[in-house]
């Protein structure tokens, strides 16, 4: 209910540094917020759950992705409809209204604000400031190259900012360190480099002839045309949903959406939760829900075994979370938010077995059912693409050095196929070293040796683990030699 607070006061891992307290208005009622958080995070903390209605005005929509990808929180902010309040920072006194159905055009806006126009040259443009982009910016920046980093969010870090667990793997590749700590460290380093320019709330809307890139920037309004010699796009991924009755009820959220609320903004996403999917994301988010003080009433997994790392599963099982194998959600119940969720056991054809239904009284259902790469920029640029289910969807074909069929356009991280932050770091660095080599920066022999070591570790060690064999098979399907890529470019393959 609006009025009760969902702010997390004590947390075992994170201490939330909240900014100055401000007041803004939601449907003309005052709401308390802290500078640095988004409008949706503040509303959620105050107990709001319905943030818009479907186009026909009938179905309530809640928070789902929390990173500006899904459109279920479109609201009217300062007279501007279709504003994604999950990525819109709060401001003192801003007036926000819930959007119900097709919005009215922003007719009250009668003065066009001037938009600054700039043409910027750079050795390399990095689109996306997540793990792949950050490590690439650091690598290229340290080699003295002029780098521009563009990110559509108000801060750097991508999804690292909500990863509160310690990463696996070798210490050399960030093993043992918490994701958000890595993000803070890398962001600080690249912000401190004179030859690296960071553009936040900048939307790279297209890659055009001669690899020129249009970037639309908010706050302040600006249109930047970047003319880079090389581009690395690490545009990440967005969460998938599932088909079941009432799957759009507020309270049904992507697992990453819940992580944003509780780990980034210190807002408890609900009181009692059901988690769907036991991949690493599902397991980790279950643990994080417990840390945030949410009671997790069950974890349903459609397969007959755990999808993620066993050590994560063991940890949450020790904390008393019940696992339901061969089960998935078939229905959510509630009027304007989830009140109950129903799971059922699946037969060998993945059809629900009648009579096996189990009903949970929950106000939160987290879907941890995989991610889909954000492929649109690569498709728009005209890169050769391939649909690879193991990688979450459509991804660009690339060389071992991460170059796509568009010469000078590189890919790394989840947009190259959904995997993990660790592999995003490694791919980002491989791409950056390849870009540096092409631009003639640094000591050639040293860079080549460094890249060879990374490739060896990635393919011969990290991806040899049976747990990531699916992703490995997927990546093998879209990774080609330089010669094969030349054939693709000439239209011969």
């Amino acid at each position, binding site marked *: 209910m609006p009025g009760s607070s969902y702010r997390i006061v004590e947390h075992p891992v994170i201490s939330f540094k909240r900014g100055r307290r401000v007041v803004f208005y939601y449907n003309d009622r005052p709401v308390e917020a802290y500078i640095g958080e988004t409008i949706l995070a503040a509303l959620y903390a105050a107990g709001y759950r319905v943030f818009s209605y479907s186009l026909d005005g009938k179905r309530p929509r809640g928070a789902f992705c929390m990173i500006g990808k899904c459109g279920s929180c479109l609201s009217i902010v300062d007279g501007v409809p279709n504003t994604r309040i999950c990525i819109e920072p709060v401001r003192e006194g801003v007036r926000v209204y819930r959007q119900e159905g097709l*919005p009215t*055009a922003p007719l009250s806006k009668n003065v066009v604000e001037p938009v600054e126009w700039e043409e910027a040259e750079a050795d390399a443009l990095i689109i996306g400031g997540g793990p792949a982009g950050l490590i690439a910016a650091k690598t290229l920046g340290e080699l003295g190259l002029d780098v521009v980093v563009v990110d559509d969010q108000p801060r750097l870090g991508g999804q690292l900012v909500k990863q509160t667990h310690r990463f696996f793997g070798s210490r050399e590749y960030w093993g043992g360190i918490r994701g958000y700590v890595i993000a803070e460290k890398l962001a600080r380093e690249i912000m401190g480099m004179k030859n690296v320019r960071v553009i936040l709330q900048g939307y790279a809307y*297209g890659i055009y002839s001669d690899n020129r890139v249009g970037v639309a920037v908010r706050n302040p309004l600006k249109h930047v045309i970047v003319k880079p010699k090389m581009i690395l796009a690490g545009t990440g991924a967005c969460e998938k949903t599932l088909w079941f009755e009432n799957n759009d009820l507020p309270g049904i959220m992507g697992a990453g959406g819940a992580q944003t609320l509780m780990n980034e903004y210190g807002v408890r996403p609900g009181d009692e939760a059901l988690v769907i999917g036991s991949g690493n994301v599902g397991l980790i988010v279950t643990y994080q829900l417990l840390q945030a003080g949410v009671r997790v009433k069950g974890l349903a997994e459609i397969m007959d075994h755990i999808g993620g790392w066993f050590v994560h599963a063991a940890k949450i099982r020790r904390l008393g979370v019940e696992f339901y194998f061969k089960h998935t959600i078939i229905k959510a119940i509630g009027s304007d938010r989830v009140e109950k969720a129903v799971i059922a056991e699946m037969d060998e054809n993945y059809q629900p077995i009648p009579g096996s239904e189990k009903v949970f009284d929950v106000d939160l259902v987290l879907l941890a059912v995989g991610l889909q790469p954000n492929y649109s920029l690569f498709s728009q640029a005209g890169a050769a693409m391939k649909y690879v289910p193991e990688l979450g969807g459509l991804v660009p074909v690339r060389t071992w050095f991460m170059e796509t069929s568009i010469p000078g356009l590189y890919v790394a991280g989840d947009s190259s196929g959904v995997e993990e932050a660790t592999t995003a770091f490694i791919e980002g660095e491989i791409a950056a070293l390849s870009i540096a080599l092409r631009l003639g920066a640094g000591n050639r022999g040293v860079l080549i040796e460094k890249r060879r070591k990374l490739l060896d570790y990635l393919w011969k060690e990290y991806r040899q683990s049976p747990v990531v064999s699916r992703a490995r098979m997927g990546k093998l399907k879209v990774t080609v030699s330089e010669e094969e890529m030349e054939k693709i470019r000439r239209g011969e393959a």
Partner: protein
Amino acid sequence: MKKGLVIIGAGIIGVMTALNLVEKGYRDIVIVEKKYPGSGGSFRCATGIRASFTSLEHVELMKRSIQLWPLLSEKYNIPYARHGYVWLFTREEDLEMFRCIVDFHNKNGVPTRIVSPEEIAELVPTIKTDQLVGGVYDPLAGKASCFKALLNPLAYILRKGVKLVESTTVYKVLIESGRARGVLTDKGVIEADKVLVAAGYGSKKILRESIGVDLGLRNIPKHALITEGYQGVFKPLLIDWETSSYIVQVLHGGFLIGSSLPEEPDKPPRSRLKYPVKAVNVWIRYFPWLAYTNIMRYWTGYYVMTPDHHPLIGPLSTVENLYIATGFSGHGFMMSPAVGEVMANYILGEKPNVPLVEHLLPDRIIKGRLVKEIAVFG
């Protein structure tokens, strides 16, 4: 496969022709499509519909189309609305030229009229008229959903037995003793008694390969964008004459903008990065609030131009049972109901329902008898 008729191209022209044939009881049709239905110009178009042209051929064809649009809309559940067009003039000389054009329209049954900036403000809520000297209003004009206009009739004819072959490229029309006898595709031969080439710019290559005739088609790259959807603001399609730009709020709510940029014919567009800026700058002068809407999609397509900007419609005199419907010069969607009707007439050996379209026979290009038209926008 042996068929009565092969239609090359599942665009709006091919589908409307097949629809008219099916409605007359002729169903032995296969439509061969290079990609998927509507993937050429049909799904990229501005969706505007008007009879206010400057040649009698166009006027007559479009008057018939405008009779048919509401009937099609009713029968196949196609969103269509007679919301009008408004031409906007910022220069006196343009307004003067249009006085003659309005006379021509009125004499030929198209009820356009000159309107003052005050009248424009009434027709177009929220428009800033300070730069305008006047305009022309065409109340007979309208718009329709390009998606439903193609997909709903297509679903209907497929239910009636018409075949659709997708992702199949036609290389040439097979001709034997001066008669069409089928097509050669990348997946083999399809035999048929009659062949209709309705493949847009692709028709050029097919006919060159088949009969060595060059139809003189040129593919002119065009740009369009659409915003997210909003509740209705203004109904008419607007044309800014000075910049050759248009804006229309389509029936599902988005603002669709087209604007002319210099591009080389028959080549991919080069000005893609310039386009959104140009399009937005033209229209925020009239609607400052438009600056606060989000662009949803931006795409390019082609106007398939003929030397006289009139379509090539009808049989070829040199090859029996070979029909052509292409070169609509940016107006194919609006003309498609009437073109579908006359093509069905031709294919069934009847006189065309709109007699003047006999001036638009493809032979005229080969013989150099051109028809004149200046009103091509965007």
